[in-house]
Every structure is written in C-alpha cells, then in structure tokens.
C-alpha cells in the first residue's frame, strides 16, 4: 500500500458498500474484485459486467488545428477520423519509444473539431505534458479533463440490451451513408457520440478492453452514482454484475490486447512491439518520432525482432510477467502477462519470443516457473475471439 494518499473515484463509497476488495492502481484506489474474479470474468463473456474506469485519463483537444496537432503529436492519422468515430493509436517519444497507447474519439462537427484523447491512468500526466509541449505553434487547446469525467463501462453480449433499457439518445450525427445515427444500432464498434443515457448527458462510446461488445460511458462525476445504480437495475434481469480490474486484466489478456507497462513501454517502438500498423507514415506533415520510427520499420523488416505470441499451458502452473521463455536450454523470450484463463480453463500468457520460435505450434517451448520448466504451446493471438 502506498504511503501517499490514493485518489478515489466518484463511485468509491458505492464500491465499499458492495464489499469490493480495493487495490492501488496507478495512484487510484480501485476495485480489484467484488467477489470471485473468475465469476466476474465469465459474466462479461456470457452476460454483462459493469466497471468503474474513472481512473483513465481524459484529455480534450479543441481548436481549428486540433487535428493537425494530434497528427503531429501521435503516430496515427487522426485527421482521417470521421466525426463520431474512435481510433486506437499511440504516442511515441522522439526516439520512437512508446509513451502510451490511446483511444482518440472524434467529437464535434466538421466546423468545430474536438477530440477526446483517453490515456492510461499511469501515463495520463506524461501524455498531457507531451501534448501541451507539442502544441506549441498550433492553433489548438489541450485541456486536462481528468476530473471532468467519471467513466463507466458496460461490457458483454447483453450490454446493448441493458443500455437500451435506459433510453439512450444520441445527438444526430451522420453515418457513412449520410443518415443520422440516433440509436445504439447505428453506433458501430469504435464509435462514440454525445447524447443522454438514464437522463444524464454522456459520451456514449462502443469501445472496451474485454473482447466483447460493450459501451463506455463518459459522464460528469456527479452523475456517476445515479448512472451506476440505473445500470445495475436495468441489468439485473440480464445477469449484469459489478466487475473489478482483476477480471478486466484476464479479459483483455484472452482478447490479446496489450497493456502498457507489460507489453508496451518506452524501450519498445510500435514496430518492435508488433504494432507497427498503428504508425501512419503517409499522413500529412511531420510527426514526433517519424525519423526513428522509419528506421525501426526498416530495421525490423530486415531483422525480425522478438514477436508477441500467445502461450497456452499444458500444466496448471501460471506464468507471470518477467518469467523466461526457454527452448533447447536457451532463453528465447520473456513473459509479459500471464494468468489462469477462465475461458480456456488453462494458464495463458503473452510473451515476446525470438522470431525463430514464434510460429504457432513450435515444439519444445517451456516457461521457467520458479526454476521448473513447464511445457507451453505457442499459439497465435488472440486466445479468444467473440462470435459476431
């Protein structure tokens, strides 16, 4: 437990009244689990789960050159995001190292562009500082909105049905064909629109970190408790349960989604991490890290780096971050995340391994689990993909 005061979300009292086990996560006192994390995980896979994600870091970018600033500051092509859509992207240092992975929501209409950048809690200050620094010379404003939002997520196959029970209304926005999007059916995966839900203003986004269909609801902190309670009531019949960060981690791991600090760090470029596809060299203008990233792209093309793979245990011992991956007596990689997978019923891990051992089905791969070599099967990511 940290000696410094932990930050508490607007839902803190509610979590305690539900008997949550709390944990220090990036300086926030967050629910780790309410009961069994395996039950919470399975609820999200089969029904629905309700998360407090208010620790995530929101930064708003506005102004005539908001898109130009973000194209300069981030590695993705932000100017190409249509109103109402969201994009997974990264922010890198000048040397190409990953500062954070982000979701950017394009809000506002064409004449008044506005972007919501959502950073990891642990990196929010660094991302904010970098955006402010990189905004010099742009006609754009970078605003720290971390305290302006609480963030609730409803995830799982029942989530759309549950949300519909709270009369969600979306502000009219144009879809690709020109028709206004006014209901959840029109809100595609990786979209987000302002509107109201349960009578309170919200940015309603069809995004998540679980591998399931689901929604993330950005609301004012004073509306968080009311919305949580409304969702709990609306979801009771569908089997919605409150979910903590523990199952969020196993859900994203099964879905093969990277976690900053585990799979991503400043010591890796997106190309070394296997996420080179998020870097868009063809976009307009220069961007921070371009030269280093171009070099990394060429280097990794010539000389394949370690590859992020999935590992599935044959036994029952669980690999943890930092454990060595071994083949033929040599260390050939390192585990970045590992957990017992509720869906597969076996321990799983993500690991960076030498390219020669990265092919699915590669034989003779073990993980050194506290001195014992446990056999693992190399598989392609993700471990789990939902049926659409």
């Amino acid at each position: 437990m940290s000696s410094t005061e932990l930050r508490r979300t607007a839902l803190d009292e509610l979590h305690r009244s539900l008997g949550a086990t709390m944990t220090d996560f990036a300086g926030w006192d967050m629910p780790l689990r309410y009961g069994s994390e395996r039950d919470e995980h399975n609820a999200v896979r089969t029904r629905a789960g309700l998360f407090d994600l208010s620790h995530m870091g929101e930064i708003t970018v506005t102004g005539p050159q908001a898109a130009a600033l973000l194209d300069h500051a981030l590695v993705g092509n932000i100017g190409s995001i249509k109103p109402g859509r969201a994009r997974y992207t990264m922010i890198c240092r000048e040397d190409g190292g990953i500062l954070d992975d982000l979701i950017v929501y394009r809000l506002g209409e064409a004449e008044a562009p506005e972007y919501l950048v959502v950073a990891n809690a642990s990196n929010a200050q660094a991302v904010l500082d970098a955006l402010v620094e990189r905004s010099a010379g742009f006609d754009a404003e970078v605003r720290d909105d971390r305290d302006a939002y609480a963030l609730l997520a409803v995830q799982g196959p029942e989530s759309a049905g549950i949300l519909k029970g709270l009369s969600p209304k979306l502000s009219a926005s144009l879809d690709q064909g020109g028709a206004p999007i006014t209901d959840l059916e029109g809100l595609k995966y990786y979209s987000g629109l302002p509107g109201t839900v349960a009578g309170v203003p919200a940015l309603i986004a069809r995004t998540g970190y679980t591998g399931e269909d689901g929604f993330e609801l950005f609301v004012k902190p004073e509306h968080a408790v009311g919305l949580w309670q409304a969702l709990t009531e609306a979801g009771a019949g569908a089997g919605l349960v409150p979910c903590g960060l523990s199952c969020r981690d196993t859900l994203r791991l099964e879905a093969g989604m990277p976690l900053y600090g585990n799979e991503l760090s400043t010591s890796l470029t997106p190309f070394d991490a296997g996420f080179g596809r998020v870097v868009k060299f063809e976009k307009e203008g220069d961007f921070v890290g371009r030269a280093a990233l171009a070099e990394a792209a060429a280097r990794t093309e010539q000389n394949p780096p370690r590859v992020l793979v999935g590992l599935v245990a044959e036994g029952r011992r669980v690999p943890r971050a930092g454990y060595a991956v071994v083949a033929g007596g040599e260390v050939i990689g390192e585990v970045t995340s590992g957990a017992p997978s509720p869906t597969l019923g076996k321990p799983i891990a993500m690991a960076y391994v030498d390219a020669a051992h990265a092919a699915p089905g590669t034989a003779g791969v073990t993980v050194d689990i506290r001195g014992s070599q446990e056999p693992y099967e190399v598989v392609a990511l993700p471990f789990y993909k939902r049926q659409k």
Partner: protein
Amino acid sequence: MSNPQQLRYSKEHEWLSAAEDGVSTIGITEHAANALGDVVFVQLPEVGDSVTAGETCGELESTKSVSDLYCPVSGEVTEINEDVVNDPSLVNSAPFEGGWLFKVRITDEPADLLTAAEYDAHIAG
C-alpha cells in the same frame, strides 16, 4: 467472517486442527483465501515429507499472484487433500472444511500459535 474456536492459527494465516492420535489437519484461513482471490493451483508437500515449522512447504496460485504455503508445525506429512489439488476453488469456497490442505504427524510446534481470538486480533490489526 468467523474463525473457528477449536482451531489454532499461525501469523502466516494457516490453521491447525486439534491433534487426533498426534495428527493435525492444516489449511489456510478464510481471511487468507479472500486476500488471494480465486485459487487456481495448489502445490502441496508429498506424503512422507518432513516439514518444519515456519518453512515453506508448497505454494498457492491465484489469478493475480503466487504465495508460499508455510507449515505451522514440524512433523511428517501423513495425507494430502487430493480433492483440493483437483479443484483448488475449494480453498475459497470452504477454507476450513473441504478446502483443507494436508495432515501432519506433529513432532514439534512453535510456542507462538494463536487462538481464534488472538488470530481475529492479528488480522484486525
């Protein structure tokens, strides 16, 4: 949660039953099970192993962590709970009953084992 009166406890959160014919049953407390979260793997000593009070004799893996299992007394392992090896969730669902871990023929026990009331105070502090 209530810690059964008839058991004794270690500060490392193991419980120990009153000896029958010199043999005591050992498990971990509900407090420890709750702190671990869902237990997914249990490694126990083998029947016939000598165990020493205060030393590690196995491990418990949960979703988020792995924890050493300490032996609260010294002696010889006479039986292990195969049910809990096959279904580690018993540690969470019935820590004082079906989730027991192993039995030991006691040769020596430390002087600082706790009563239920003392253990209650230990985990409250």
